[in-house]
């Protein structure tokens, strides 16, 4: 009797151990990871009916470019979500441009029930999105306040990796300008990029990593997180060429509604005056972070 009991217990222990090992294997093999690499509009706000101003709803919205990976396989998709009051929707056919986000709205059954289109504009220290939202044949004016994000070191390192992959010479120059090079991305290629990525993931506050992240942002103004970072830089030093580019993005809203400029933040009013007065004179502004002059997006994103 005792022997039989011991045998059963032993079988049970072996079984549990086997199942546990199997579960770990499944987890390791099939661990999908998703990382946001481009942010569009994300925040909460209001949708106010165009036909009845007392018909309004609290909304939450997020548009993002997401990189999904499984082992060596990686895919990029643009997706979004919308919470209209208590109702949740998915956004498809997402487009994230320079200060614009648009998509079609789908309900839980997969039916297309509307669309949303937003443009961004600086208000105070934040970026605010305004536009229209059509849902179930009702059209609303929508206003969304961009939520500040805490960007994880792994996400920052991913952007730095992309920058060094697409601009190895500039990557090296930026590191040199901020101190010394971690390695030579021109000569060492992939191994150096991996090294920089790993270094910046572990040392996100290192001057070289911060300079590389800023250099990435200077050529990715379609990313709302980058615009937020550049906006802070422009408040401190409007002489950087990228401030003019940022001003041009927000100027699209002014061209649609000229009266908005009267309540614009001072930095934007100043840069807009410079844009209106013609080409930027050659200013000997100190290159505090990186000698990034040819600001074309070479990432293909």
């Amino acid at each position, binding site marked *: *009797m005792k022997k*039989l*009991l011991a045998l*059963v*217990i032993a*079988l*049970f222990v072996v*079984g*549990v151990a086997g*199942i546990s090992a*199997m*579960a770990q294997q*499944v*987890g390791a*093999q*099939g*661990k*999908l990871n*998703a*990382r*946001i690499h481009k942010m569009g509009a*994300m*925040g*909460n*706000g*209001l949708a106010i009916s165009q036909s009845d101003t007392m018909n309004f709803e609290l909304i*939450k*919205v*997020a548009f*993002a470019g*997401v990189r*999904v990976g*499984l082992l060596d*396989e990686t*895919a990029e*998709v643009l*997706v*979004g*979500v919308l919470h209209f009051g208590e109702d949740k929707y*998915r956004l498809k056919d997402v487009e994230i441009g320079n200060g614009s986000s648009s998509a079609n709205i789908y309900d839980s059954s997969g039916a297309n029930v509307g669309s949303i289109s937003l443009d961004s504009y600086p*208000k*105070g220290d*934040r970026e*605010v999105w305004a536009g229209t939202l059509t849902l179930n044949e009702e059209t609303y004016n929508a*206003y969304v*306040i961009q*939520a*500040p*994000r*805490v960007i994880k070191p792994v996400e920052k390192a991913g952007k730095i990796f992309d920058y060094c992959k697409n601009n190895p010479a500039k990557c090296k120059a930026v590191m040199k300008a901020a101190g010394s090079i971690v390695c030579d991305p021109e000569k060492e290629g992939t191994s150096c990029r991996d090294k920089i990525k790993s270094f910046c993931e572990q040392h996100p506050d290192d001057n070289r990593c911060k300079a590389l992240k800023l250099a990435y942002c200077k050529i990715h103004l379609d990313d709302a997180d980058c615009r937020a970072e550049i906006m802070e830089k422009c408040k401190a030093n409007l002489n950087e060429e990228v401030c003019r580019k940022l001003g041009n993005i927000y100027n699209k809203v002014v061209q649609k509604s000229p009266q908005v400029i009267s*309540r614009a933040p001072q930095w934007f009013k100043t840069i807009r005056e410079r844009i209106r007065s013609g080409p930027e004179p050659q200013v000997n502004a100190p290159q505090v972070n990186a000698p990034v002059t040819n600001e074309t997006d070479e990432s293909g994103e």
Partner: protein
Amino acid sequence: MKLAGILIMAVLVAAVLISGCAQQGTQVPSGGEKLTQQQIEEQAYQAVEEEMEKALENMTLEELENELLQQG
């Protein structure tokens, strides 16, 4: 009698664990299988939803009201 009880318990626990593992295995491809577009999108939607909730959890309604009032 006791032995039968233990045996039944052991079988039930094992069945529950195996069932859990089997479900986990169907969510994502294993080994050399390719990701489907549906799996990619599902994971992306989940990531965006989580990111939005996380970013907004500290943004209170009072803060939202203040921002909207400031805009006049």
